[in-house]
């Protein structure tokens, strides 16, 4: 592999990898936050009954 090709490839992998992982965590956090709200509402409703 040429040295500039190697440099571009390595930097692309590092930043795409890190931001991909961060995006995955963010989406997971959003989904869990929604689920948690829904469950908390269900618990409140059940307790009122």
């Amino acid at each position, binding site marked *: 592999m040429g040295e500039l090709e*190697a440099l571009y490839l390595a930097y692309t992998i*590092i930043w795409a990898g890190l931001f991909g992982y961060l995006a995955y965590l963010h989406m997971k956090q959003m989904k869990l936050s929604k689920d*948690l709200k829904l469950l908390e509402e269900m618990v409140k409703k059940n307790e009122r009954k």
Partner: protein
Amino acid sequence: MKFDKKMDTMVLVLALVFVLLAIYMALIYTPVVDDPGWNAPKAQKIFYFHVSAAWVSFLAFGVVFIMSILYLAKGLKKWDDLAFASAEVGVVFCTLAIVTGPIWGSAEWGVYWRWEDTKLTITFVLWLIFVAYLVLRGGVESEDKSRLAAIFGIIGFVCVPLSFVSSRIWQSMHPNVVATSEGSMSAETGMGLLAGVVAFTFLYLFILKKRLNIIEMTSKIEDLKEKIGGL
């Protein structure tokens, strides 16, 4: 471990500032190595983030080691959660180091990997151990899962100091980062590396907090599900 929102934002801002600074330092500020001994001097700039990723993975596995000891001693869930979160983030950074190293190797050595090189092999074993740690945490259904994982995390950490010193103890093609008797890195190179290490350390703290938050939310959801089932 509870950070407030302000602390979270501060860590994110610091991470972003240092990431931009580190990219500038690595690509523009630091000189291309001027040594006939290097076959691919431009590709050497991979080093700034390859070493930083490796450093953060060592830090993350060190946190797993300490939290695992604390968990075994005190049995508190928060230590176990922190060990789990740090192991996952450590594996991500270790993967980046393990992937970018061979890319540099292909330009510099003409081959991607050298199995005879102790540093490369030990780091690969370290990565495998912590991937196995994550599989153990995700796959084993046992009440002792956390204890087993803690023991695994403590044993796995042994590879960290071994990987760190291996290129100095055994014959290795892997360049030495820390200064040796043969010479040290230039001030510019040192500053570039420092910026990368600081940037990745702040990124690690930010990601660790996010991952820990996910673990806590998952536990809360499980508790609420049980509560609903019990009502």
